[in-house]
């Protein structure tokens, strides 16, 4: 509780956080949608599924973008989202075979 109160205030870091949300957010959304396309229900060849996969990108991206300023600093945002990207892309390459 006390540690929470004493924590340094979050820094706006407008450029780096906005970049993280806009760019790393969209690449993360593509990778996650891709993983869902291959490994989600029905697999890659399910009819009409590609349209749903496309629709996934915007909400995933916008959610990341919307909350990106909660990271304590721009560096933190880049590191966390960069890491999430590596993980998601690795997973995509793995399920894509």
């Amino acid at each position, binding site marked *: 509780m006390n540690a929470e109160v004493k924590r340094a*205030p*979050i820094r*706006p870091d407008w450029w780096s956080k906005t970049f993280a949300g806009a760019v790393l957010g969209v690449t993360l959304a*593509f990778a996650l*949608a*891709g993983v869902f*396309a*291959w490994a989600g229900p*029905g697999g*890659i*060849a*399910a*009819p*009409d*599924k*590609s*349209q*749903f*996969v*496309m*629709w996934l*990108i*915007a*909400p995933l*991206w*916008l959610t990341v*973008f*919307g*909350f990106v*300023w*909660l990271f304590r600093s721009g560096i933190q945002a880049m590191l966390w989202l960069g890491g999430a990207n590596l993980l998601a892309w690795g997973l*995509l390459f793995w399920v*894509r075979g």
Partner: protein
Amino acid sequence: MKIRSDILRVYQAVHTWGGICAGMLLFIGFFGGALTMFKGPLERWVSAPVVPVQQLAPAQVDRVVASVLAQYPAAREEFTLHVTRHEDAPAPVSWQAGESGHEIDLGLVRWQATLDGDGKLAVTQQQPSLLAELIDMLHRTGGIPGTLGEEYLGIYVMGVAGVLYFLALVSGVILLLPTLVKDFFALRPGKNRKRFWLDAHNILGITSLPFHIVISFTVVVFAFHDQFYDGLRGIVYRDQPMFAPPAIGATPRDATKLLPASELVRRVQRQAPGFEVTELLYMGVESPRPIVRAAVASPRHLVQAAETGFVIIQPYSGAILSTSMLPGQGNTWSSLVAPFFALHFGSYGGMTVRWLYFAFGLAGAALFYTGNLLWIEKRRKNQLKNGPLPAQPRRTANIAAATVGVCLGSMAGVGACLVAAKWLHAFGAHGNGAYLTVYYTVFLACVAWAFLRGAARAGSELLWTCALAAAAIPATSLVAALVPASGMWAHTSPATLGVDGTALLLAAAFAWAARRAARRASDGALDSVWSAAPAPAVVAAEPARRVGT
């Protein structure tokens, strides 16, 4: 709920800048969107009665189709059978040269065919009104002209505005959370203008939040779906087909062997019980892949397009080719996507939802307008007790003028287009060629006027302009009804009378707002951007005001 002040500060900035950058564009998008809920009635209202609306028996319609196909090769590429007929589509069959393209062709000429008194084919050439299409385009592009690649530039700009809009929604909710319970629905009128606008802004935002979230993210999808698909094709699907390729027959077809249209309507009807078949779009009847896209409407279902769902049928065998755009009969994936279209277009629940979306659209426009007012009030330099009248920052005055000019100008421009449609016809011209000129002239004149006169004076003057433009809509119909020799028309179907009635109500609302704005300009606080009093040194006699109001 408690939220740390540092988070609130950051999201306050996100909210303000997202809102200010996208607000005016979104105002036009929402106002245009509200109008497109009644695209049909608007199109009917502006369509001159060249041919009377024809009610023919199904067998007669079949004869029209057969005769048209025999005599007009252009129709074999694509033609529309209007099963339900209205003022804007009075004849049972219509077609145009070439296929209907992606972009709006203002010189578009259409042929329509029906039977004359002797039962013979009667074909007339006609320029269909494109006003509703143009309002829809205003809604989708914000009125930004130009193209980028194969798409309108404005659609991408609107997509970016959609992203900013989503960010403004998230940050707005975060800002409201701490005081949500206390302040919700507390509309505090009275001396403190800023408080009042903030309460109004919060009520509008929170009560329609689900609507706004859906609109914001569907806008982003609509703007960037090509890029999203390209990205998925490149990195996710690669060699996997994204869409099942359509089956193509081997031989060209003979149009004389088509099933009668009435039979196709019957089969679609059987496939879609509870739906009304409104039109059949025949595509490539002599090609190896002839299809008919039947539009089906129902107030009880979510449908995929703006107004109807679709059934795809083979016109020679009558085989149903696809029901994936028919509500309730698509597969799991398409039925997961369909609601998002419907939730954007308001194409469910019939007239009730159309009116609801109309109200939501206007309320959304008001959300951005009040947001800008708050930005302006926040940056207002207050007069200190007995102090000299402060000069307002240039930037604040500019945003105020732009808000008034752009928002009110877009509404006055659309109103003027409707009125112009009938008056131009009276003078022998067609509206299509003039709509863009009329809209941009009125719009740009309003913006210029706002900057010339300043926000305070222009505010009420432009509201009077909007009231005048709106009132001119039913007034024109009245003139047309009273003076038939004018060459104008007044349709009397409930849908078109609804256009006149709604315009009259809006005119009253504009007039009311104009009087309020004028009163604030003359009697309101002198240190406001909305005060019409010149900002001179005659401040000593001013009554004292409290700081911070």
